[in-house]
C-alpha cells in the first residue's frame, strides 16, 4: 500500500460517501432514539467523521481496531455492515453483538474489531495486547486504537504509551481531540493541552493533524502505518476535531457556547469535502444524488433489518458468560 492517498475522482467520492454513511446513519439513530427504538446511551460521532474515515483508508484486512463507546463511525468506516449495527442498536439477536452491547459495544471478529469500550481509556491496554500478539505472531498487522482527548488524563494512557514504545509495538494511537470530555473543556483538564506533545515523554513519534479534513487524516495515517509496518514502533496522531452534537442524549451543553459550535460547524468535513469535490469537478450533481440515494437505501435496509430482528431468547442469558471454546 503506497504512502500517499490517490486523490482521483473515485477515491474522493469514496471518502465523501463514507463520511455521509456515518452522518446519515447517526441522524437516523437519533430519530430512532426519540422514537425509543434505541435506548441506553447514544454517543454520536457527528462532526468527527473525517477521523474514522481517514484512518481506515490506511488499514488492511489483517489490521485490528479498538474503539470507544463513540464507535459508530469506526465500525461503519471499518466496513461492518449497517444491518447488524442497527440491529445492535435495537438490541436484537441479529446485532453485531447479539444485542447485548448496544451502541457502545460493537464487536466484529471477522473485521478484527475488538469492541467499542465504555470505560474511558479501557481500550488502550487491549490494543497493546492485540499488537503484542501480532508482533509475536509476526503477522505484520497494525492495531489502530481510537480514544478521546479525555482518555489522556487516565493513568492507563501513560502506561500504554510507554509499553508501546518500549516494546516497539505496531500500534497507531488515534487521539480524537474534540476539545471536550463530556462537559470538561480540555484546558481545564490538562496542563499540556497539545496532546501530541505528551508522546515525547515516551519518545514516540507524534503529530497533530486537522481532524476535519479526511484527506489530511488519510495522508497522515498512511505515513504513520507505513512507519509502523516498517518496524519503527508505534505512532501517535492527535486529530483535532469537534463533535457537533451533545455528548450523549442527556446533555444540556452548558459548557460551551452556540457561537463556538457554529464556528466549528463552518468547518464541517462533509460540506467542505462536498464543496471541494464539486469545485474540482470530481462530484457532479448526478453523482451526489446517486450517492445520496445509495446511502439512504443502505440505511433504510439496515433499519428494516433491525426491525425484522428477533430477541435473543431469555434462556440464553447466561450463554457465553463462560465460553465452551475459543472461537477460531
Amino acid at each position, binding site marked *: 500500500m503506497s504512502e500517499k492517498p490517490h486523490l482521483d475522482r473515485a477515491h474522493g467520492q469514496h471518502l465523501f460517501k463514507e463520511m455521509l454513511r456515518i452522518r446519515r446513519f447517526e441522524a437516523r439513530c437519533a430519530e430512532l432514539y426519540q422514537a425509543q427504538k434505541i*435506548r*441506553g*446511551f447514544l454517543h454520536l460521532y457527528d462532526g468527527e467523521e473525517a477521523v474514522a474515515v481517514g484512518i481506515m483508508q490506511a488499514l488492511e484486512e489483517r489490521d485490528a481496531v479498538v474503539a470507544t463507546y463513540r464507535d459508530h463511525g469506526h465500525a461503519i468506516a471499518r466496513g461492518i455492515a449497517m444491518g447488524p449495527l442497527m440491529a445492535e442498536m435495537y*438490541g*436484537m439477536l441479529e446485532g453485531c453483538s447479539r*444485542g*447485548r*452491547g*448496544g451502541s*457502545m*459495544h460493537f464487536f466484529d471478529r471477522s473485521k478484527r474489531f475488538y469492541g467499542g*469500550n*465504555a*470505560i*474511558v*481509556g*479501557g481500550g488502550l491496554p487491549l490494543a497493546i495486547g492485540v499488537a503484542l500478539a501480532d508482533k509475536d505472531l509476526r503477522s505484520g498487522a497494525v492495531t489502530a486504537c481510537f480514544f478521546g482527548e*479525555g*482518555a489522556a*488524563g*487516565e*493513568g492507563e494512557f501513560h502506561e500504554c504509551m510507554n509499553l508501546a514504545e518500549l516494546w516497539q509495538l505496531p500500534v497507531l494511537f488515534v487521539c480524537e481531540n474534540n476539545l471536550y*470530555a*463530556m*462537559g*470538561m*473543556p480540555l484546558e*481545564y*483538564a*490538562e496542563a499540556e493541552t497539545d496532546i501530541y506533545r505528551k508522546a515525547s515523554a515516551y519518545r514516540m513519534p507524534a503529530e497533530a493533524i486537522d481532524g476535519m479534513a479526511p484527506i489530511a487524516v488519510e495522508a497522515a495515517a498512511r505515513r504513520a502505518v507505513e512507519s509502523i509496518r516498517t518496524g519503527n514502533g508505534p505512532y501517535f496522531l492527535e486529530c483535532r476535531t469537534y463533535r457537533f452534537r451533545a455528548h450523549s442524549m*442527556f*446533555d*444540556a451543553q*452548558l*459548557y460551551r457556547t452556540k457561537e463556538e459550535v457554529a464556528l466549528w460547524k463552518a468547518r464541517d468535513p462533509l460540506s467542505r469535502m462536498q464543496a471541494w469535490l464539486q469545485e474540482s469537478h470530481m462530484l457532479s450533481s448526478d453523482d451526489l444524488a446517486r450517492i445520496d440515494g445509495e446511502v439512504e437505501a443502505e440505511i433504510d435496509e439496515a433499519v428494516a433489518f433491525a426491525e425484522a430482528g428477533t*430477541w*435473543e431468547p*431469555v434462556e440464553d*442469558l*447466561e450463554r457465553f*458468560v463462560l465460553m465452551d471454546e475459543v472461537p477460531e
Partner: protein
Amino acid sequence: MRAAEQLAQGLRMTYREACRQAIREALNDDPRAFLMGEDVGLYGGCYAVTKGLLEEFGPERIRDTPLAESAFVGAGIGAALAGMRPIVEIMTCNFSLLALDQIMNNAATIPHMSGGQFAVPLVIRMATGAGRQLAAQHSHSLEGWYAHIPGLKVLAPGTVEDARYMLKPALADPNPVLIFEHIVLYNAEDELDPAVTSVDISSAKVRREGRDVTILTYGNSLPKSLEAAETLAGEGIEAEVVDLRVLRPLDDATIFDSVTRTRRCVIVDEGWKSGSISAEIGARLVEERFFELDAPLRRVCSREVPIPYAGHLEEAALPQLPQIVEAARSLMGRK
C-alpha cells in the same frame, strides 16, 4: 434564589434534588467541605445531581477533575488526612475500579495502620445499579462487594429521605463513607416529613411491618420489595420489609430481630448473587439464628452475567417483582 427554590419545591422533591440539597447543606455547614469529581461543575453532574452548585459555590468548592479516578480519589483521601472534609464523586461505581487501590490500600487502611494517628473523614458518592440499558460496563452494583472491606462504611439510600439526610452524618463521620446512589432512583419523588431532619447511618430501617416473612433489601430493590409486599398482602401474607441501607457495618440487631419474629427470610439484592451482601447476611443467619428459622433462605439477586443492553435481557438479569413474590410465597408453603 436558594430559599426561593426550596420554597417553590416545598418538601416534595426527587431523590436527585435530595442529593443536591444534601451537598448544598454540607458545603454551607462546613467550610472544610468541598465536592470534587468528573463533570460535577460545568456540566452539572452526569445525572444532573450537582446542577447549579458551581455557580453557587465557585470552582474551589465544586472542583471539576480530569478523567483520573485513582488520582482524584487519592487526592480526596490526602485532603481528608490533612484536615479537609472532601466529598468525592465517582461518576458511577463502574469507574471506581480504577480507584480501588486508593480506597482499599489507603482510605480503609491508613487509620488502623498509622495506629490511629490519622483519620480519613471522606465521603465518596457514586451512582450504582442497572435498569437503564447501559450495558455491561455501566451497570454494576458493587455496593455489597465494597462492604467486604474493613475500614469503610457503606451506605445505600433507597428513599428520598435517606438521599437527603445521609450525607451530613456521613461527612461528620471520622471514617471513609461510601454512598451508593441508584441511577433508577434519581427520578423518584417523595414528600419529606418536616419532622425529620436527620437519619441514622448505623441502622437498618423497617419500611413495612409484617409478621409472616422478612424481606431484607436496599436501594432500588426497596420499591420493588414494597410493591411485592402489597401483592403478598392481597394474598394474606404479611411481609416485613427491612431496608438495610447500611451495608457495612451491617445492622445485625434489626435484621435478626425481624427474622426472629417472622422466622422466614427473603433477601433481595441487585448484586450478582455469589458473594453479594445477601451472601453475608445468609451466612450470619445460619450462624446466629439457625434455630429461629423455620424455612430455608431465599435470595433474589441479579443473575450472574454481565448485564446486557437489550431491554428484555436486562430485565431478566435483575431482581423483579414476580420473583420476590414467588420467593416469599414459597417460604409460606404456597405455590
